[in-house]
């Protein structure tokens, strides 16, 4: 338990309930900075899209803040709007 995905690729039906805390909560980060583009990159797909909460595992507050931060970083050309062209 506590694992997000069962190792070895068990069947979909019996995947245990995820209970992984949000990474920002875990590190006690109050403000998601748009300047930390390397951190933010973990929450985007390789195409540059913002990943869904069920993929990132962030809590609602931090997912929202991360999304705003990613959009700010895009505006300042720290992250690409469309990656992999």
């Amino acid at each position, binding site marked *: 338990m506590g694992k997000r995905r069962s190792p070895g690729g068990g069947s979909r039906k019996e995947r245990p309930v995820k209970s992984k805390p949000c990474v920002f909560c875990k590190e006690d980060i109050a403000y998601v900075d748009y300047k930390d583009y390397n951190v933010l990159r973990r929450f985007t797909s390789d195409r540059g899209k913002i990943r869904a909460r069920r993929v990132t595992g962030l809590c609602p507050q931090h997912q929202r803040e991360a999304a705003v931060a990613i959009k700010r970083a895009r*505006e300042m050309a720290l*992250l690409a709007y469309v990656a992999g062209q």
Partner: protein
Amino acid sequence: MLIVIPELDEEQVGNTVSRFRTIIERTGGEAGEPDHWGRRKLAYEIDHRKDGFYAVMEFTAGERTLVELKRILRVSDDILRHMIVKLPPSYAHQPLPEPEPVEASA
């Protein structure tokens, strides 16, 4: 945070940034020491330029600071892009000497 055009050299970039620092101080704000990231590749082209000089500065704003700063940033030809962000009160990366209610980083 602002992005200065790559055609300038380091010294001219420093002059440009300190120009904005003067504007902040003249209009009743307090400007911290600018953090120069140096020349950096842009994630995408802006005005057919592939890179630019990044500079980040934290400051507090007086009443007229933001209006004036935004106006001048917009008309400056050597500024590729700029962004002024209000920081939350809890943010204490580089604490300013006198934190005021209106706090922002450019």
